[in-house]
């Protein structure tokens, strides 16, 4: 598959194109981490993260590619792995304790939100994720989910978001949760 075909498919939200890219460059990209003191798991994580960054940029039309996809992916992997190595080296014991305290509080809040997202229907989850994370246009969401038009998507998205907010707020009183 040629690069321009892949880009076109991804911009329409075709996840099979992502699978194809993942398979095609797996060895090349993970090799970069493996030869720089990374484990197999770290290499896989970095490559997957890089692909998701790429996916997000293409799908939200934020990317004007001037090189081959492989070159671009390689540079993302390189940057992500450098950041990871920096993060590892900077993480002293004191910082770890502090991070643990903050994480516990944030984790609890995240857990509740995750739980409420899980209570939404499949279509609601998809609409919210495609809209907020993938930054897909209403038209692309309509095409992907087989909806009649953009107005249908807009209404559905509004309802789904309101439902999610009310589910989260129902778990806690506003003062408990937001303070």
């Amino acid at each position, binding site marked *: 598959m040629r690069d321009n075909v892949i880009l076109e498919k991804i911009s329409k939200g075709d*996840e099979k194109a*992502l*699978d194809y890219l*993942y*398979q095609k460059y*797996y*060895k*090349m990209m*993970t*090799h970069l981490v493996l030869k720089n003191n990374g484990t*197999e798991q770290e290499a896989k994580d970095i490559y*997957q*993260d890089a*692909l*998701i960054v790429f*996916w997000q940029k293409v799908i939200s039309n934020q990317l004007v590619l001037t*090189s*081959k996809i492989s*070159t671009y992916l*390689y*540079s993302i992997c*390189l940057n992500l792995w450098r950041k990871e190595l920096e993060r590892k080296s900077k993480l002293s014991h004191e910082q770890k304790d502090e991070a643990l305290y903050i994480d516990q509080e944030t984790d609890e*809040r*995240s857990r509740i*939100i*995750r739980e409420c*997202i899980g209570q939404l229907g499949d279509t609601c*989850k998809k609409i*919210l*994720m495609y*809209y*907020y*994370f*993938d*930054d897909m246009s209403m038209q692309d969401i309509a095409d992907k989910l087989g909806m009649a038009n953009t107005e249908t998507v807009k209404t559905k998205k*509004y309802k789904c*978001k*309101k439902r*999610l*907010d009310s589910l*989260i707020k129902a778990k806690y009183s*506003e003062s408990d*949760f*937001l303070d």
Partner: protein
Amino acid sequence: MKDFIYTEKFDNYLKGKLEPDDRSSVEEEIRQDPLLLQETSLQKDIYQVLGAERRLLLKSRLDKVAVNTGSLMNFTGAQWAAILGSVLLITSAGYYGLVNFQEKDTEIAKVDIVSQEEISAKSQAEELPHVPLPVYNEKEPDDAGLMASTQDKLAVVAMPKAVEVEGRVNQENKAIPKIVLPDIMTEFEEEDQTIDYSDFNAPDKTLLEKSEAISSGLAIETIADQRYDFHYQMIDQKLYLYGDFQGIPYKIISLNRNERKQLFLKFQDDFYNLNQEQIEVVPLDLIQDSTIIKALRALSH
């Protein structure tokens, strides 16, 4: 406040897509309204968790994609089936081949016994059947023919056992198989001996299996960048050479080593390794291994 968080403007604020002026005005609005401030904090968390959930979904999807890591554990079911099939096929072929070979050997052995009986009936004096000896040229070899004579003997000794037994079976009725050997040249023309190989060192077999000196269709660009003196990088099968080469010719040599093509740069009698996956600009790496240098010299001339 409640309606504002469901507007497109607020969504764009969460996504970081607002223009600086719009962003400032939204932030000012948030600062002035404590309830909106709390709500924004919650909405930012929801936005983060939605993103994290989507990432997880994509990652779990990618985890299911079969990838080639070079490990046996990563073969798919179909690949395993193909391997198993091949093994069975080879094993079966080997088994039938062995059975056929043993059957043939048994047949010959049976005939051999019969012939021995016949022989013993015909000649009581002989305890053992005659084994046909290879027929050599009775003529004494001269010095020049010594090599040829030795090779004749070796060729007969190296004959398959089956032929030898067959010869024994048929010794009375059939003619001994005639072995035709090629003429061996024992003298060389004067011209052939004039080539001087003294300066040539044959490269190690494992090092150089099949080599070629080529320009390999590799696109090359030299860049006079003061930051990088004698550096290089490879992007999309294109070699970028950094530094002042002063117009002196250089050469790219491709060497097939351990079934892998390696590229080298020859410049002013020195050789440098070129890693084809080197995307970043790095200094040229001088080759110091004398074996590789010899091989590269042989190729570059």
